[in-house]
């Protein structure tokens, strides 16, 4: 380990900031003994960053660049001594998630000029990378990545195996079907990048203290007030937890825990002595995901590691240590990866081994990194859980987090990475240990549409779980909650898990088709209990007043009305999209997407006035929600309740408490999330089974059946219904997605985002949510769209899709997505008008293949069968603009 350490961090950072040098240089000579600390800690600072790895230094660098100076960075050992020190140093932009791709792209550009900026050698070398495909499916996934890289302006091409061999003469290409070449991918010495960032930050005034251990963060009244260290206390406004694999423990060290769900796994890579004819330092990095390995040139030899199928999680009990010791090499464990390496590069057999490095990496429950502010402690920020891509994300992630701290929100939509997508429920050590064992191999597994995790399941379930399961339910999970995808009819065996992984028409196609048909012609029941449900009530008018300010639609409606509304931020963007029922003058019932449970709670908590007479309660667990969808829903419900349910008596968007079967107090709302006629029943959980049985028995004569979320999705997408988290995010306003009718700019009271929306109304929007009907797409033979496919207008890139589904009614694929208007010359974003949308020829790029698409700004009215209430009809008025 010693030797490696010296090689990777052989650097010149002593020439950096003099104050810092004096403090640390003495420690470099004797790294094992505790040194007296020559510089004492400041008593206070605006920001305290914990962790001197790539993340901590990047945040410090970017904060100081943005003009913040009063920053202290604390590192328990030495700078860049943790996972950062051992990182393989591959900067790769080939990422399937768009925000991760953007972060990696930014990091690459940042590192490229870092040496010039700081004078610290970073070892930056633009080598390019080749990702190999051993199967056609792998090649499809590479093509999808290539499409999104290309529209971002990142050079990238799909190449033949022969071309790959030309780029890297050691590759055995006999089992390859193709490859992807990204010429601008790079190699760096990650420790030195980190030190360079630290050097620049230090020059900008950031104070860096090594050998300083944060014991816990103090939080008062939901705000960070300071940190306790082994060298005393620092008062601060902001704390940034960049503690890497110790972030979880650090989050739990204070009185008020901050849940940061990540878990470390051992990660192995091999270092060799130089090849006889030393490899060129510009030789491209090779990634062979089917062999689960990566190979880069290193000191004339190679560095090769991988993501094995049977990872070894560690530190589950939270064992702490000052610096990551070089853990034991485990050759038996590495064996399969070594086999893969020698299969890929048989010429290396005679190459002499230098070392097998064991370097723990932290992984998260969904393979995406964790950033953002704690939902419970204001000013407590987190950046950790890099899933083995820390060096690729480091620059971009640090930038976004710094923007977040300084501006209140980053410049890009980072919801997929937001800490608030998790709650306490993902924080169990057992859950994390099991889940990361699935996540780490997934790094190399094929990422197909609609993949579900297999571990950490059946945590939150509806009371009907067993009943539905017995009827053939196939499950997926959202925010820990089991939801039905579809029901497999008896005797209808689907492919097993592995074989159902496909980019083409899936095996459940006909099953979901029949569920959709039943929703349209008879009645289906879908268990939607996972949705987040809050109740807001007050003694006076506080509830109404607060909600009027927080929501864009007018909530001062008669009791019993249901309102669809956005919960917008200052810029008019959707923080949440929900349905709110006015239960009484002073109480409201709010339904939001499942994964809003933490985010929406935090948002309301921080925006509602601190008033003991205003009560916010999370009642998600109290109700089972059954959605009755279809034209006969009304018949079923009226038979069960002896109450007239027709549109005259129970119009759309109404809410009433009534009895269903023997059970009283069922909250019935005439809404569906698909645009079909129907009702949602909010049932106190003890009645759930009874009501379900009654509905199924009574429904028999109307042809009732169970349905799942896949049917729901097909129905909502064909009707152009946007879903928050999928289509809508904090950067999308109601104006941009045809929802002006849900905004009451003149409701008489000011509300969050009002100004921004006014401006948009006057000046127009810069992107428009658009529906695309694929024209020349063969459902049986062609690749299916998923989301994230580039949209081309008249041959030019204008945006990406956000969701897609097959419409069984239209017998076509429908994609939803945003269209931008980039100036042909400058690339500047221009206003998107209705004409701009309507006067274009569109194509959707699915893994490199373009399909003609018809753009629509409004749904097919023929798909709506029910009479709609006034505010929904406005939608059609909007279309005529």
């Amino acid at each position, binding site marked *: 380990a010693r030797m490696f350490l010296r090689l990777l961090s052989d650097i010149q950072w002593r020439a950096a900031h003099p104050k810092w040098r004096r403090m640390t240089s003495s420690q470099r000579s004797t790294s094992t003994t505790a040194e007296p600390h020559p510089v004492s800690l400041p008593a206070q600072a605006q920001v305290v960053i914990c962790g001197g790895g790539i993340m901590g230094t990047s945040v410090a660098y970017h904060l100081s660049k943005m003009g913040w100076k009063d920053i202290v960075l604390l590192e328990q050992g030495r700078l860049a001594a943790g996972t950062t020190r051992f990182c393989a140093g591959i900067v790769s932009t080939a990422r399937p998630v768009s925000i991760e791709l953007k972060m990696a792209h930014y990091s690459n550009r940042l590192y490229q000029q870092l040496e010039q900026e700081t004078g610290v050698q970073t070892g930056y070398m633009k080598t390019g990378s080749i990702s190999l495909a051993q199967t056609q499916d792998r090649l499809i996934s590479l093509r999808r990545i290539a499409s999104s890289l290309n529209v971002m302006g990142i050079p990238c091409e799909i190449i033949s195996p022969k071309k790959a061999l030309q780029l890297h003469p050691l590759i055995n290409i006999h089992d390859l079907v193709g490859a992807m070449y990204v010429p601008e991918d790079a190699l760096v010495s990650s420790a030195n990048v980190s030190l360079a960032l630290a050097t620049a930050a230090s020059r900008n005034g950031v104070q860096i203290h090594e050998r300083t251990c944060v014991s816990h963060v103090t939080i008062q009244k939901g705000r960070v007030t300071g940190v306790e260290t082994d060298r005393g206390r620092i008062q601060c406004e902001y704390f940034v937890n960049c503690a890497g694999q110790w972030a979880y423990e650090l989050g739990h060290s204070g009185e008020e825990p901050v849940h940061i769900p990540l878990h470390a796994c051992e990660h192995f890579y*091999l270092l*060799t002595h130089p090849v006889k004819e030393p490899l060129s330092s510009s030789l491209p990095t090779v990634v062979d995901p089917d062999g689960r390995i990566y190979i880069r040139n290193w000191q004339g030899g190679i560095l090769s590691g991988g993501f094995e199928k049977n990872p070894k999680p560690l530190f589950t009990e939270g064992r702490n240590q000052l610096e990551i010791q070089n853990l*034991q*090499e*485990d*050759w*038996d464990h*590495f*064996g399969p990866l*070594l*086999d893969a*390496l*020698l299969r890929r590069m048989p010429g*290396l*057999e*005679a*190459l*002499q*081994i*230098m*070392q*097998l490095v064991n370097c723990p990496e932290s992984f998260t429950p969904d393979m995406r990194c964790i950033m953002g502010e704690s939902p419970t402690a204001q000013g407590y920020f987190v950046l950790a859980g890099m899933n083995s891509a820390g060096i690729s994300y480091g620059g971009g992630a640090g930038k976004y987090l710094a923007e977040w701290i300084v501006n209140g929100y980053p410049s890009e939509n980072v919801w997929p990475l937001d800490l608030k997508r998790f709650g306490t429920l993902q924080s169990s050590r057992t859950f994390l240990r099991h889940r990361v064992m699935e996540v780490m191999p997934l790094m190399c597994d094929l990422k197909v549409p609609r993949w579900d995790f297999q571990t950490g399941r059946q945590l939150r379930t509806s009371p009907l779980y067993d009943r539905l399961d017995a009827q053939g339910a196939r499950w997926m999970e959202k925010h820990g909650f089991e939801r039905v995808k579809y029901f497999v009819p008896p005797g209808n065996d689907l492919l097993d898990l592995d074989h159902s992984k496909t980019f083409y028409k899936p095996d459940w196609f006909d099953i979901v088709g029949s569920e959709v048909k039943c929703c349209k012609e008879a009645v289906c029941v879908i268990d939607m209990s996972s949705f987040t449900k809050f109740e807001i009530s007050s003694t006076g008018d506080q509830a109404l007043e607060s909600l009027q300010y927080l929501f864009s639609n007018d909530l001062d409606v008669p009791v019993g009305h249901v309102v669809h509304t956005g919960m917008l931020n200052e810029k008019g963007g959707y923080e949440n999209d929900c349905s709110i029922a006015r239960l009484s003058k002073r109480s409201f019932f709010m339904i939001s997407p499942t994964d809003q449970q933490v985010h929406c709670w935090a948002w309301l908590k921080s925006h509602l006035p601190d008033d003991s007479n205003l009560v916010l309660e999370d009642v998600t667990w109290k109700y089972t929600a059954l959605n009755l969808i279809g034209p006969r829903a009304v018949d079923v419900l009226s038979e069960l309740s002896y109450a007239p349910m027709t549109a005259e008596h129970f119009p759309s968007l109404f809410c009433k408490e009534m009895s269903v079967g023997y059970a009283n107090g069922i909250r019935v709302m005439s809404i569906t999330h698909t645009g079909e006629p129907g009702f949602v029943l909010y049932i106190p959980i003890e009645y759930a089974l009874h009501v379900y049985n009654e509905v199924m028995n009574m429904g028999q004569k109307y042809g009732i059946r169970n349905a799942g979320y896949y049917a729901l999705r097909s129905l909502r997408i064909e009707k152009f219904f946007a879903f928050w988290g999928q289509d809508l995010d904090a950067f999308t306003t109601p104006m941009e997605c045809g929802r002006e009718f849900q905004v009451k700019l003149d409701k008489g009271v000011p509300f969050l985002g009002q100004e921004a929306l006014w401006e948009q109304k006057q000046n127009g929007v810069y992107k428009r949510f658009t529906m695309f009907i694929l024209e020349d797409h063969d459902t049986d033979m062609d690749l299916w769209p998923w989301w994230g496919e580039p949209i081309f207008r008249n041959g030019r890139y204008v945006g990406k899709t956000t969701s897609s589904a097959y419409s069984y009614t239209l017998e076509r694929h429908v994609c939803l997505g945003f269209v931008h208007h980039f100036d042909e010359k400058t690339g500047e974003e221009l206003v998107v008008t209705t004409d701009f949308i309507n006067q274009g020829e569109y194509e959707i790029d699915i893994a490199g293949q373009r399909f003609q698409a018809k753009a629509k700004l409004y749904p097919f009215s023929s798909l709506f069968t029910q009479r709609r209430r006034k505010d929904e009809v406005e939608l059609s008025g909007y279309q005529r603009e």
Partner: protein
Amino acid sequence: FYLTPSQVNSILKANEYSFKVPEFDGKNVSSVLGFDSNQLPANAPIEDRRSAATCLQTRGMLLGVFDGHAGCACAQAVSERLFYYIAVSLLPHETLLEIENAVESGRALLPILQWHKHPNDYFSKEASKLYFNSLRTYWQELIDLNSGETTDVREALINAFKRLDNDISLEAQVGDPNSFLNYLVLRVAFSGATACVAHVDGVDLHIANTGDSRAMLGVQEEDGSWSAVNLSYDHNAQNEHEVERVKMEHPKSEEKSLVKQDRLLGLLMPFRAFGDVKFKWSIELQKRVVESGPDQLNDNEYTKFIPPNYHTPPYLTAEPEVIHHKLRPQDKFLVLATDGLWETMHRQDVARIVGEYLTGVHHQQPIAVGGYKVTLGQMRGLLTERRARISSVFEDQNAATHLIRHAVGNNEFGTVDHERLSKMLSLPEELARMYRDDITIIVVQFNSHVIGAY
């Protein structure tokens, strides 16, 4: 002609047996966790036997392997009878009296042994009465002899061995009115058997050995590696002390004829054995018994044949050599096996294979490159070999089976080679004996926690 892996497995596992010492209140208070045993025939029928039993009236567990020659009759009789003789030898005076009184008054007997038998390990029903009477005579003598001293295990073992061999000899001389039994006792006496028996009681392990089977202790060193400690001496021509002993017991004039071609009188491999009255009785006695015996015996060339240079019998004894060992926490297991195993495997390999098997693959010594020059290709070869070793571990649920798999199937690299295994197991009966001997193995696993607490 090849056997599939599952055919190989069914052959190897046909005779496997495992016993786990039952736990009380979730605790196993015995120093023995349990044992695995198995045997693989080369002779048809197999001439090896095995026995295992728990002593019920004293503490301790008995385990033994018996290697028969000139037929299996003697080995069979010893496997049925020896443990009773040992158990009786160990019983205190009061218990012997109680048992005798029970027999006398026709009451139910206290059970003496609890056997742990594979379904194929049979007891001969026909002889049970005869055997019982001999045993009863033995304990009656013990009652009469009542020395009042506490029973010494070493002495008990020696006495039991000698007494049983004596009874075998006597029964053959006396004969039995039942012609079947008469023939049986003669076959028992004229065939022979070696015996290697372990008696474990707490930390006291006694090995009584007669012949060339062997007991070996598996010891785990502090660094996790395995070493072997012999707990018995082979009684054969390779053992100088044994050759010396035989020569001491006979006149100098016979010195040259005593051991020829590494065999006793040029005929017998083991220098100690049960039965084999041809090496114990006087020529006159042999002739008288054979002549008055049944025709089958008379027609048998072997029984009629008198060993050459047969001047001062007896040349053979069943008296065992007893070794006592105090178990230590690092003593993880004991292997008792007939010479079929030891002639194919070195004890060090046996210790390693069983040790790694019992502790699981995780304790396989990790590989460290350190300062050595190792290429990627060499490392791959090494890892492949280690994986093969592990996969052979997973196939077996029985340590003895695992050991047999290695004994028969090992290639020059010490890993199981399926092709070789298949060839060895599919040899025709008449050829099998040329390539391998009967193999019988018992692997006893010790309870380090209990042993450490002593």
